[in-house]
């Protein structure tokens, strides 16, 4: 409870109409962001133990991290790892599909499902629009790995393995460059 309280309080504050509509002063906007960020950090160990409970493997999950900046194609974890497991937790009470888009450093990966079968995947260069986002400064990921995650059970999870591979390896991702059509 104590680990959640900061985040609860921050969310309560940000639900003020100024926070929702963006009519707060800039210093207040920074304060909102700081409060939510502090709250998330405080709650993070709780997330890890929830994962451990869900999977029954407490040892492995102490090393788990998540990527809150994946929406701007930045993930410090995948910047420094080419071989990892991805866990998708579905908080909805019915099964869902998901299109994974993971920032990665290289062009060629094999993505395997829980049965060990390679799934179709594609790598795309990070686009010029995204590269302009200043908060992305320092990111090493030049590509995004895209694949279908199917089907994540209701309030459950699936695991995929992502491993860097040589071009031409069985099941390796297709690298698709951004090709100019018209200038």
């Amino acid at each position, binding site marked *: 409870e104590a680990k959640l309280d900061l985040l609860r309080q921050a969310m309560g504050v940000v639900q003020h109409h100024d926070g*929702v*509509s*963006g*009519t707060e002063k*800039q210093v207040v*906007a920074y304060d909102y962001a700081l409060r939510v960020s502090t709250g998330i950090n405080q709650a993070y160990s709780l997330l890890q133990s929830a*994962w451990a409970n869900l999977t029954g493997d407490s040892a*492995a*999950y102490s*090393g*788990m*991290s*998540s*990527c809150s900046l*994946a*929406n701007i194609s930045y993930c410090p974890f*995948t910047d420094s*790892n080419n*071989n*990892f*497991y*991805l*866990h*998708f*937790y*579905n*908080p*909805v009470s*019915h099964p*869902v*599909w*998901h*299109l*994974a888009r993971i920032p990665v450093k290289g062009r060629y990966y094999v993505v395997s499902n829980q049965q060990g079968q390679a799934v*179709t*995947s*594609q790598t*795309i260069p990070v*686009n*010029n*629009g*995204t590269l*302009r*986002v*200043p*908060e992305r400064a320092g990111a090493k990921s030049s590509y995004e790995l*895209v*694949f*279908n995650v*199917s089907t*994540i059970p209701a309030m459950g999870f699936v695991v995929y*393995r992502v491993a860097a591979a040589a071009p031409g390896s069985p099941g390796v991702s*297709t690298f*698709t460059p*951004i*090709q*100019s*059509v*018209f*200038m």
Partner: protein
Amino acid sequence: DSKPADGELDWRDGGSESLNERESLDYRPVFAPLKRDDVIEFSQLKEAKKSNPIGDSKMSYMAYYYGYPGNNSAPEFTASGAYLFRPTKQTPERFSLEEIASVTGPVVNETHVVWSNWTYQVLRKFANNGDSLQYSENELTVGPIPYDANTGREVIVRYNTQLNSSATFYTDANGRQVLRRVRDYRPTWPLQQTENVSGNYYPINSQIFLNQSDGSSFMVLTDRSEGGGSINDGQIEIMLHRITVRDDALGVGEALQEKGSDGRGLVVKVTHWLAADQSLPSSSRRRRELANRRYREPLIGYLTA
């Protein structure tokens, strides 16, 4: 539990053939000389055109309004600011298109549209993966908006369809309750409209959609609270990002000029999910489930090998 039989349309391919066998994204406007009204068409399948309520004018383009730099000396001189959106003209300024690029692959096809060096759009069309709630994605990156001491810029995206929406559209008030909106009309008092664009803007917290009397519909699901409306029939317009040069004297005391971490104007990256349907039951189901999925996207954890 099963695919909506009439819900596929042509946002994505409903068949079993592979992505590469399908018609690729349509660049037709590109190869003709560019005109001011040129638009980008996308996700168009020849065989679906006839039954497609969205019609041939499926298109999405970015544009911007100049914000009114009023001096707040009287209500009619109120500046565009944090509380008020007041464009100087009722039609947005169009970019002259700079570049189109494409990505073609087994999971996703993308069309990249560079409208200017501060507006970038990526339209994504996914391969059929068995997901019954098919949708397309539009990723929009805006900023830093060029600063001009005399006037603000307020950047929008427009989606045009051929639906006859009869001046009516729907937005959600709070992520749950969808309200019917009618252009230039308020249900509880006689409205004298003086702001043709902003007077028809409403909050869009998770979704905005158009319905036609025959049940055809087009929906946009947002990834954050935005503002927008349907300024013309068959059209959805959504505000993405804005800077203003003045405060609107309604309480903030600051013009909207937020800076990013590099000290320059903020860059905003937004994604919209787009889907179309031909019947109301199918569109209601798709919209509710997609909105739920959008609001509660799967959490992704990473674990070292």
